[in-house]
């Protein structure tokens, strides 16, 4: 049976664990602690949790300042506001000065669902990735979320971690029972030489399903979980371009500027092969159930299957 879990719940739990280990860990939120689940940390360590109110610009600046007093600061809000409202604070202060601020942004992508476009950040990878010094990580499930949170807590400098609102399938437990998270490395989930899929976030589960279907039809697809979007795994991208001749990227994000763009940048400069980007096709999201929205934008197992077939037919 498939186990389901929420990335943000696991994030909140991990914060508590780290809170006991790291007395200099501070958590900040902007009136969304109950949604981002930093409230769990607040209940355990009320003297180290600060709500800055609905003021995301100042949230980032306060986080920057607190980090300058020998603290590790986790800040959370929705991806929309953490990346969008506070972008310039992240750029000019946190990133430039390489501060020890970990931005963990939940509710990314159209997976937010019913709240609609105003709450569906589909540009955050693009705008944060473009900032020097910023690293962008995007876990595929709750298990990987905890590994990433642990990793960034012990590694200096600014990070942006992109979480989803939904409860999603757990499928990274086997890998992480023997491994820790490694920045800059994709995780190979399945091997094959007919085509490559590079996917990020919880939608990677659909890719996994598609790979199984294709295998039954005799098509062997190499699947990567690209939880490290920046730094990106250049080596694997180039090798896969050479060995499989085509790449499909998948993300709950605008196809402009996100993972698809990042992969394309590497491919076109090093070993041009056809790359198809599945994602939000440069439109605003809308209200609906996450599943319905995924269907609307082609983020489904079936559509992945047919895109792989198309790519294999059209590769050189």
């Amino acid at each position, binding site marked *: 049976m498939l186990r389901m879990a929420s990335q943000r719940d696991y994030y909140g739990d991990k914060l508590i664990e780290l809170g006991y280990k790291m007395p200099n860990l*501070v958590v900040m939120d902007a009136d969304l602690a109950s949604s981002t689940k930093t409230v769990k940390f607040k209940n355990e360590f009320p*003297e*180290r949790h*600060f709500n*800055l*109110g609905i*003021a995301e*610009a*100042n949230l*980032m*600046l*306060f*986080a*920057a*300042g*607190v*980090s*300058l*007093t*020998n*603290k590790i600061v986790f800040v959370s809000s929705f991806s929309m506001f953490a990346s969008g409202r506070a972008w*310039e*604070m992240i750029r*000019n*202060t946190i990133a*430039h*000065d*390489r501060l020890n601020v970990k931005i963990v942004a939940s509710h990314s992508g159209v997976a937010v669902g019913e709240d609609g476009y105003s709450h569906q950040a589909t540009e955050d990878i693009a705008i944060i990735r473009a900032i020097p010094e910023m690293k962008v990580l995007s876990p595929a499930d709750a298990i990987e979320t905890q590994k990433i949170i642990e990793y960034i807590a012990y590694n200096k400098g600014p990070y942006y971690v992109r979480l989803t609102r939904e409860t999603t399938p757990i499928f990274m437990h086997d890998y992480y029972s023997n491994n820790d998270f490694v920045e800059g490395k994709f995780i190979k989930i399945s091997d094959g030489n007919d085509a490559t899929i590079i996917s990020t976030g919880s939608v990677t589960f659909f890719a996994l399903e598609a790979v199984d279907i294709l295998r039954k039809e005799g098509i062997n697809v190499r699947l990567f979980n690209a939880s490290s979007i920046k730094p990106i795994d250049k080596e694997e991208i180039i090798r896969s371009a050479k060995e499989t001749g085509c790449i499909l990227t998948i993300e709950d994000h605008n196809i402009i500027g996100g993972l698809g763009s990042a992969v394309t940048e590497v491919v076109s400069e090093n070993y041009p092969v056809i790359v198809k980007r599945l994602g939000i096709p440069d439109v605003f999201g809308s209200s609906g159930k996450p599943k319905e929205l995924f269907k609307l934008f082609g983020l489904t197992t079936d559509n992945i299957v047919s895109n792989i077939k198309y790519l294999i037919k059209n590769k050189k």
Partner: protein
Amino acid sequence: MIKRIKVFSFFKLFFKEKGLIRSKKDKELIKLKQDINQIRKLIIDSVFKAGSGHPGGSLSAVELVYTLFDKFLKFDPDNPKWEDRDYFILSKGHAAPLLYTVLAYKKFFEIEELATLRKIGSRLQGHPDALKVPGVEVSTGSLGQGFGVAGGIALGLKISGKKNKVYALLGDGEIQEGSVWETAMACAHYKLSNICAIIDVNKFQIDGRVDDVMRVEPIDKKFEAFGWRSIRINGHDIKQVEDAYKWFLEYKGDKPSVIVADTVKGKGVSFMENKSEWHGKAPNENEYKAAKNEISKE
């Protein structure tokens, strides 16, 4: 014995009135004034040599910043990250020529380096870069951000049980930024009595008078409404500036403090005074000479 003291005091008073002997306090004041003049000259020098930069808002805050560094701020130029230091944050980062000059004057680096301002390869970037310049706590230039970071530092110090103070200098135009008021709210909410904001009210911004572009007055009342205590002073009167810092340092309550200082933009160079066009341009050769000349006469 008593008589002798009386006679002595009489003579002292007599000579003092004639200006023949000066008290230690007077000497200090004279030295401070000389330093301040010297700093104004160095600001003009560095902006002239750079061929660009911001003289207006640098000149208006010389008394405010130098007096702080000279008399109140705890720091160690040989150990800029000294744990018990006080923090000074230039939230109006474009006044970099002022900050650099004060830091050089206080031996964070050589005065000669001021000549490299804004030049390729220099540590002295157009706006202060904390990764490059010792004594710069956080990089600033984007208005409003330094103030928020100062608030965060104050919070971090408070929860660490530390006694260091945090000072942030803002422009009166700068406080039009929305985040400034987010920060003001948060400092009061978290009872950060260890922070002192200094507002350099020189009444001009880039596009003209602050009153015409976007009115911010009454500044002291606004901060008070946000939960701060405020004092309003003449920012060129050294005595008032000193008293204002004492007013902050002697405070035992739990509110953040703001010093609202009325100043003159371009102070000390008559043709730069109260002219928004001198916000961000360098003097030409003739203007440079005239400016230096005028400051020397002070």
